[in-house]
Every structure is written in structure tokens, then in C-alpha cells.
């Protein structure tokens, strides 16, 4: 069973503001019954100063969906509409003392309902980019813009993260590859290098070894190659760190991989033995012969021309 915080339990067992508000002038409806959760948020906004006077929710969903809805209504009451729009899904989760990762999408649903309600109040059409985006996850009807937004706002790096925040990929899993593409593109658009999947996801048992198992030699693209190399370095890193050292990839030049040894490893007499071991692992992982050299060799080789 899920580990819910006491605050989540409190808002589930004793939800605040349940039911629709009479005379509401801002209504937001999100979710769908096929997904297993849906939320109707009704707000009463004072048109003179845009302050939210009252809020009510009706939710079809699990414990954390109900708790998130209850929390949202408590949070936005008394806020101006503009201020309310600044409430993020993370704020909702924080208000509840955290949500299990698999349940983060419940807080996202709250955030979306709020946006939809405000759009309704302002008489705006809320059918924006969400309708135009490419449908990525067919099981839950999640489109690319939704995933992009969550990747941007919450700095998601793995398919598992995306599933936890948006549900996309939580069904038949045929869209996982597509989701990976969306994640990569979004990070590219953000102009930042994506943090190496130090995410919660388990190492994908099929991905890397499969390349080797199929014996595809030299057919890896440079990006795939670098991913494999980084993976090997990640695997040996704990051992190096145990000895007070570290290693990082500096460059790949054809069949030569330049690695920078740092900490206790640099200058260690066993450095070449260490690199020899790393080289063996690289060869196994890449399925082709490569040479691993310390980065100090780079200048020498370049000088030789």
C-alpha cells in the first residue's frame, strides 16, 4: 500500500470544501473517468478585486486525488486569481507533506483544474496547446505539450518520472521511447544538459546489454556510445570513490576514450591498472575494441598530430 503522509490522510478522511459552490463563477474540470481520476473545481471570485471567496471540489479518484483537491481549495481561498495561478503542483504536494512519486499526477491535476477554472472566469478559451500537441500516451490521452511542461517545471529526466507526474507511459508502455524523445527535446530546448539519469528509475536491463547481446559492432551512434561509456563510468565510480577518487569522461576520439582521474586516483601508481580495468569493461559494454587513456595523454597525442 502507499505510504501517505498524515496530512494526506487528514485531507482524505476529512476533506475540506467538498461539493460544488453555489453561484460559482469559475469552474474548472479536468481528468477523465477512463483515467481513474477527474476533478471539478468551483470557485466564487469577487469580481471587484479578483479575490477567491470560496472554493469547492468534486473528485472521482483515489485517496491522494481527494486529498490534493481538498488541499488546493484550502490553499487558494482568500488569494487573488493571479496569486492562485502561482500555486504549483509541487506547492500542493508540499502542503500535503509530500506525495508518493507515483501519485504526483494527483497534484498536477489540481494545478490544471485551477488553471481551467481561472480561464473559465476570465472567459478565455482553455483549449490551447493541449489540443494541438501530439498524442504521446494513448492509454491516458496525454499529449506532448503536457509532458514538456512537466519536464520543464519539475526537471524530470526519466520515463518513470514522467509517468509519476502525468501518467503518460503508465499503461501499455509502447510510448516509452516517444517519451524519452520528448524529455531529450525539452532539455535541449531549455538549453541545459540533462542531468544524467540519476533518477529513481532502475537501470533499464534491456537497453544497454541488448546492444551488446545482438552483437551490433560499431553501429552505435556517438550519442549512444557516450551513454554506454558514461554508464560504465557510473558503475565503477562507487569503487573509485571508496578509495577517495573519481573519474570523468573528457573526450572520445575514434577508438580512444579519454578519462580524467581525479582525487586520490590522479598520480596513484595504480592509475594505469585502474584504467586497464575500466578499458576492459568498456570493451565488453561497447562490443568493440577501445582504448582508455588518461586525459593527460590527450595533449601528447594531439601534438604528435
Amino acid at each position, binding site marked *: *500500500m502507499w505510504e501517505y503522509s498524515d496530512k494526506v490522510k487528514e485531507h*482524505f*478522511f476529512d*476533506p475540506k470544501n*467538498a*461539493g460544488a459552490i453555489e453561484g460559482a463563477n469559475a469552474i*474548472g*474540470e*479536468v*481528468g*477523465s*473517468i*477512463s*483515467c*481513474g*481520476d*477527474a*476533478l*471539478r473545481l468551483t470557485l466564487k471570485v469577487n469580481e471587484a478585486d479578483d479575490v477567491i471567496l470560496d472554493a469547492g*471540489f*468534486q*473528485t*472521482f*479518484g*483515489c*485517496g491522494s*486525488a*481527494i486529498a490534493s483537491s481538498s488541499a488546493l481549495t484550502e490553499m487558494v481561498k482568500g488569494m487573488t486569481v493571479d496569486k492562485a495561478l502561482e500555486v504549483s503542483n509541487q506547492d500542493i504536494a508540499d502542503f500535503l507533506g509530500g506525495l508518493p512519486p*507515483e*501519485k504526483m499526477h494527483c497534484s498536477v491535476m489540481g494545478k*490544471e483544474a485551477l488553471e*481551467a477554472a481561472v480561464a473559465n472566469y476570465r472567459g478565455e478559451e*482553455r*483549449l490551447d496547446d*493541449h*489540443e494541438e500537441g501530439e498524442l504521446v500516451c494513448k*492509454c*491516458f*490521452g496525454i499529449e506532448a505539450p*503536457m509532458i514538456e511542461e512537466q519536464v520543464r517545471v519539475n526537471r524530470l529526466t526519466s520515463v518513470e518520472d514522467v*509517468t509519476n507526474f502525468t*501518467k503518460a507511459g*503508465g*499503461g501499455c508502455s509502447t510510448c516509452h521511447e516517444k517519451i524519452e524523445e520528448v524529455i531529450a527535446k525539452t532539455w535541449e530546448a531549455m538549453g541545459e544538459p540533462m542531468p544524467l539519469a540519476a533518477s529513481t528509475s532502475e537501470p533499464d536491463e534491456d537497453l544497454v546489454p541488448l546492444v551488446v547481446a545482438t552483437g551490433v559492432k560499431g553501429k552505435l551512434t556517438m550519442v549512444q556510445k557516450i551513454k554506454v561509456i558514461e554508464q560504465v563510468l557510473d558503475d565503477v565510480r562507487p569503487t573509485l570513490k571508496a578509495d577517495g577518487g573519481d573519474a570523468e569522461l573528457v573526450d572520445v576520439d575514434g577508438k580512444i576514450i579519454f578519462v580524467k582521474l581525479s582525487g586520490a586516483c590522479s598520480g596513484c601508481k595504480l592509475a594505469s591498472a585502474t584504467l586497464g580495468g575500466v578499458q576492459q569493461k568498456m570493451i565488453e559494454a561497447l562490443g568493440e575494441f577501445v582504448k582508455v587513456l588518461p586525459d593527460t595523454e590527450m595533449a601528447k597525442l594531439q601534438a604528435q598530430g
Partner: protein
Amino acid sequence: MQGIYLDNNATTKVDEAILAEMMPFFTEYYGNPSSIHQFGERVGHSLKKARKQVQALIGAEHDHEVVFTSCGTESDSTAILSALKAQPDRKEIITTTVEHPAILTLCEFLEKDGYVVHRLKVDTKGRLNLDDYKKVLSDNVAIVSVMWANNETGTIFPVEEMAELANAAGVMFHTDAVQAVGKLPIDLKNTKIDMLSLSGHKLHAPKGIGALYVRRGLRFRPLLRGGHQERGRRAGTENAASVVALGMACEQAMQQMEYENTTVKALRDRLEQGILAAVPSCFVTGDPDNRLPNTANIAFEYIEGEAILMLLNKEGIAASSGSACTSGSLEPSHVMRAMDIPYTAAHGTVRFSLSRYNTEAEIDKVIAAVPPIMARLRKLSPYWSEQGPVCEPEKTFQPVYA
């Protein structure tokens, strides 16, 4: 722990007499049954007795047709992989859309290796169409694996008839009977079933013990290789204490079978009728006329299962749900989807599964506790109004983006 336990299809309480029977095997009788000395011999005798007790419950012709394993899942994997290994030219498997993940996930994995899996569909009551089955039976099929009774709905499949058909076509037949063993009379020697999986913890033995029935003479390839235990069909030192427990559990199940099918069944019916009478917009899923005596699966429309379970739990009532949110997969139960249960109901299915330890007083408490819980959650539901479900819920409530 106080509370009302109605989740016996998930697992059962270890019977006290069974626990007492197994305890000496942790202390006094610790010998390895393969050893020649008195320490081993004593244990060896106990295993022999347990094997006969299991044999009796499933009506096997010989006691050595019973192979002890670690669980139902191991039995299932052993059966299917053995059939494939023993018949390398046969590349197809027949199963159903509503099997336990122990079968379905393995089949998906085998598909990646090029095996063709035929998944027989069920109708809205969870029943198979045997004409569909006959169409896919061929020389290419290595094994048919069909559950005896469904864990979620309790619906019983005609496995004896299906085994006859498989046998006539020269195809091996396996059944995952972990839910059926002990609740339904089984007489394997008079069937054409080649392999059958059972699990101890579903019948008041501890977790971590199962068995696979393998018909004498059936071509077999072990999953675990090593020592000569279980006649070389399952290597590894026997889990003696649990084997003894499983044996005794089978003997008890044999004695209690009538009770299960009369008293427990009556309690189940009382629970089901009590709930159906008091809660609007709910219905029984599966095939009510042909199911396990202890299982009631009720779909409560327009509310979600996890929320129901949390409120039931607060009242001390343990049940389970086919809702997406309780599984971690975000998809409602594959069994409910296979039966075409509408989403408005699939997310709100609750399984109550009884055992011989439940009492009428407990059932009456549950009948009283359920209606207010459903009313409370429906009050929160956007698909429900004061009077009942909103008309055409999908149209009335149309969220802007799903």
C-alpha cells in the same frame, strides 16, 4: 490484530494447528531429508506423508506426481518453460486474457523470444468461448495454460473439458489452480490435465511453498537443476517445515471443502445480497452462477477503489480492489478490462474474499459499514448528484483536457 479479514484470495492466515505441526521442523527435526542418518530420515518420512496429503486433495493417481516448489509462480513458470523446452518445434502457447500475471507476464516475455501467444478473450461475465479455443488448437501449440478459477472474480473455467480437447489435439494442458484447490473438488486422475499449479498460502499454509502436479510420463524439463530432490524435477533442499504445513493444509482443506461450499458460500451470499440491497448503482462482476464459493467482486460505480479501501480499512475491514490506483500500474485491472466493465465501474471494483474463519457477525458488520462509505465518496464524486448518477455522466461532465 483485530479486524475483519476479507482478502483471502490474496493470502490466508496460517491455521494454528498447521503452525504447531511445522514448528518442530525448525528445531528438533532439522535434518536434511536426503541424509541417511536418523535426523534426515525423520524429515524424509514427513515429506512423504505431506506428498500423499497433497495427492489426496487433488486426486492424483501417484504421490510422485506432486513436485514441491516455492510458490504458485514458480509452479507456473516451471510448467510453461518445461513444455517449451521439451517440445522445441512447437512455438505457440494458448492462454486467456484474464490469467494471473504469473502466466501473462511470462508469456509477454516469451513473445520477445519469438513465441506466439494466443490469448482467449472472455465475455462480459468473464466466460470463455470454446469455439475460439478449438480454432487455435494445433500441432504448433506447445502448451495450453488456463486458470481453474479467476482470482479477482472467482469465475470458474471449464478446464476439464478444455484439457480433453487439448489431449485430443495432442497438446499439453496446464492449469493455474491456486484459487481453486481446496475450494472445488478436484480429481486429476480422471481428467486429461497434465500439469496443475497450487500454492500453500491460499489454503492456510505459510507463504513460500507451492506444488506442481506433473502427470506421470509427461515429458518434463526442470526449471532448477542441481541435486536429485523431487526426483530431479526441482533441485534444492526441501523447505521441510513448509512442505509439512502444505500437506496438513491439504488434509484440512479436504475436510473443510463441504463447509466452504455451504457455510462460507452462504456468508458470501449474505454479504453480497446485503450490499446490493443497500447500495445503489453497484453490481457483481464475473459469472455469479459459476464461481468460487468464497469470492464476491462488486463494482461500485462512479467512485474509486483505493478511496473505498482506505475508508474500509479505517473501519477495520480488509478487502482489495481492481482499481488502477491500488496496483501502481495506473491501469484498472486487466480482468475488469477484459470483461468490458465500463471505466465508470472498473475503477470502483472491490473484491471480498472469505475464508472458513469469517463469522456471520463479521459479515453483518461489513454490510452495515459499506453503504455509508459509498455514500460519502459519491458525495465527492463529480459523476454523482443528490438523486443518483448524473444522466449520461460522460456528457454532463466533460473536462477540457483529459
